[in-house]
């Protein structure tokens, strides 16, 4: 039997105290693992999802909200912008690519995006099967949407208002799936793409019915500070909780409610609106000039994904740092628990240790056995903690389905090896003093009962 086997037998002998050390290490490591996976995956997704996008143009309001809603598809949009104004910006020589987005509905939490073929170009999407939408109410879906909802070409799906799948269902118009994209490992995997006209028509055709069918909801909306019917209609029909503070920043919705109505209404008449536009610059010189051009000369706002993502991540970082401190405190408690458990065990095991010496075990051997015991306790705890961490990520991932699914549990990061190393190091440090005590055990004195 080697030292590790003997140490493991000792651990099993003292189940209760050993379990406490293992559990504390597991919880500490588990929290660190969740933080590691979360921050890594969020950072990676922030990078992946915003790659190639230099600027987002949308209605004035919170720039982070604009980025979250238009790139990460996590938050409500800040409002709508005029398609005409957006087209003028798109024609600017500094712009290489301009991708219009029209949001409003979802299917089981997956956002339905009205856009055009530039979206595919921007995100580098390729078809796995079928074809791109060609006419209204045809949709091409991301790989995750198809997998999670068991959708195939020719299936029909009904969109619901807003971000939540509990929103009112547009059962007048079904989208027919014409194609499924290959997995792209970014947000597009969880989106449903269609043309702009489908989104406009969906809400335009729907408008009159909604006046009758959802009178109650309109009453609720009337509690808001808005007193312009058009704005209320707009918000209700989209199913989005637009930032009300920014309602005045829409392309004059408060001054011209009819405009909003027409945008949301009949396709082909009046001025149309889109939610936002993703911009790719032609050259780096645009970085300094173009956002200023948008912010100063139009009623729209320009938000830089790089800046806002960094801001967002630094905000998240505060929470992550706090949780990290908590995890380290738990790990410290684990170390103390292992130390106390080993130290106390020495008293009851002093004869065992002395007998081992009489059988030929060297002082170094006893030192090694106690160290192995400390390391084993925290190693098992650290491995269990990593399991707990991944399980937690899995549960978080499954509970946040739809477009906002960010976390993948079946991902092993090299840094997790460091978590195990930290656990083992804590076990070693906690075991050093008991091990020295075991090393110095006087066989003769112990066996004489002194």
């Amino acid at each position, binding site marked *: *039997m080697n030292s590790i086997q003997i140490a493991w*037998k000792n651990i099993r002998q003292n189940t209760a105290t050993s379990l406490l050390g293992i559990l504390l290490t597991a919880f500490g490591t588990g929290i660190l693992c969740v933080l590691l996976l979360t921050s890594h995956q969020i950072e990676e997704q922030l990078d992946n999802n915003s790659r190639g996008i230099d600027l987002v143009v949308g209605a004035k309001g919170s720039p982070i909200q604009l980025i979250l809603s238009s790139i990460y598809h996590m938050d409500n949009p800040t409002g709508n912008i005029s398609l005409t104004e957006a087209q003028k910006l798109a024609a600017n020589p500094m712009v290489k690519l301009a991708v219009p987005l029209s949001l409003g509905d979802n299917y089981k939490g997956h956002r339905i995006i009205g856009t055009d073929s530039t979206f595919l170009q921007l995100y580098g999407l390729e078809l796995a099967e079928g074809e791109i939408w060609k006419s209204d109410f045809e949709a091409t879906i991301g790989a995750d949407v198809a997998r999670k909802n068991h959708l195939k070409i020719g299936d029909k799906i009904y969109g619901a208002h807003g971000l939540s799948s509990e929103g009112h269902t547009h059962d007048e118009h079904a989208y027919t799936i014409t194609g499924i994209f290959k997995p792209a490992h970014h947000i597009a995997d969880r989106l449903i793409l269609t043309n702009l006209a489908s989104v406009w028509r969906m809400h335009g055709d729907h408008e009159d019915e909604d006046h009758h069918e959802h009178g109650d909801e309109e009453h609720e909306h009337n509690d808001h500070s808005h007193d312009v019917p058009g704005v209320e209609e707009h918000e209700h029909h989209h199913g989005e909780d637009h930032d009300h503070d920014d309602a005045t920043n829409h392309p004059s919705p408060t001054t011209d409610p009819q405009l909003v109505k027409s945008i949301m209404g009949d396709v082909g008449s009046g001025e149309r609106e889109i939610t936002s536009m993703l911009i790719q610059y032609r050259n780096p010189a645009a970085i300094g000039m173009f956002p200023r051009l948008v912010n100063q000369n139009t009623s729209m706002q320009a938000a830089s994904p790089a800046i806002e993502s960094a801001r967002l991540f630094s905000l998240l970082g505060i929470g992550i740092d706090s949780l990290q401190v908590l995890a380290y405190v738990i790990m410290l408690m684990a170390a103390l628990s292992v130390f106390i458990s080993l130290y106390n065990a020495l008293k009851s095991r002093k004869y*065992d240790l002395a007998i081992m010496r009489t059988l030929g*075990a060297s002082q170094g051997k006893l030192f090694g056995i106690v160290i192995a015991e400390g390391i084993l306790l925290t190693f098992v705890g650290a491995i269990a903690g990593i399991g707990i961490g991944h399980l937690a990520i899995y549960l978080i991932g499954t509970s946040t389905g739809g477009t906002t699914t960010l976390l993948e549990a079946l991902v092993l990061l090299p840094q997790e090896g460091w978590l195990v190393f930290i656990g083992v190091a804590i076990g070693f440090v906690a075991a050093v003093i008991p091990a020295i005590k075991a090393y110095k055990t006087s066989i*003769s004195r112990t066996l*004489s009962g002194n």
Partner: protein
Amino acid sequence: MQDNKQTVIRLNGITYRYPQGESLQFDDLEVTSGQHTLILGDSGSGKTTLLHILSGLLKPETGTVQIDGQRIYDLPSRKLDEFRGQRIGLIFQEAHLVKSLTVKENLQIAQGFAGAKVDFDRIREVLTLLNLEHKAESYPGKLSRGQMQRAAIARAVINRPAILVADEPTASLDDRNTESVLSLLLTQAEQQGATLVVATHDKRVKTRIPHAYQVSR
């Protein structure tokens, strides 16, 4: 005077000073192979101290200890540990089996610590001799007192030691059990070719082991 080749224990000029300052001086001793020996003396006379000295557990202040031809305190610490594991079998009043290990594992570590390869045939053989083969996988907590004592003897003889040292093995035992333990120790010593050295103040033992060495202050 015995021939050196047959001498398994030789103590010369041994003195020992306790940490409290008290000093003990022991007469020289020479034990030949198979000459089972009693170390007699009253409680507190230094029997256990002498036993620990000749077992390589307690270094004397002066003098030499030669076991099976080896001056044991000339050996470096690690070698002395190994020598003890290989050539000296120790038995105590209490069995002191390692509680977290089964009977078989207690014998395994005795082989391993002594630097020998684990020999399961040998373990089986010894357990059978001591009528413990059915308890090989049992933990000490599941054994009777007699079984624990036998397991401790099995562990002491597993490496075929040159000397088998027992410290008060019959203390607190009734006559029947004293006789039983002594028979067992003598039988095992004979079977394993070891010389038995028993430290005791129990007069009942004298009748079975005539060669005695007296310790007195």
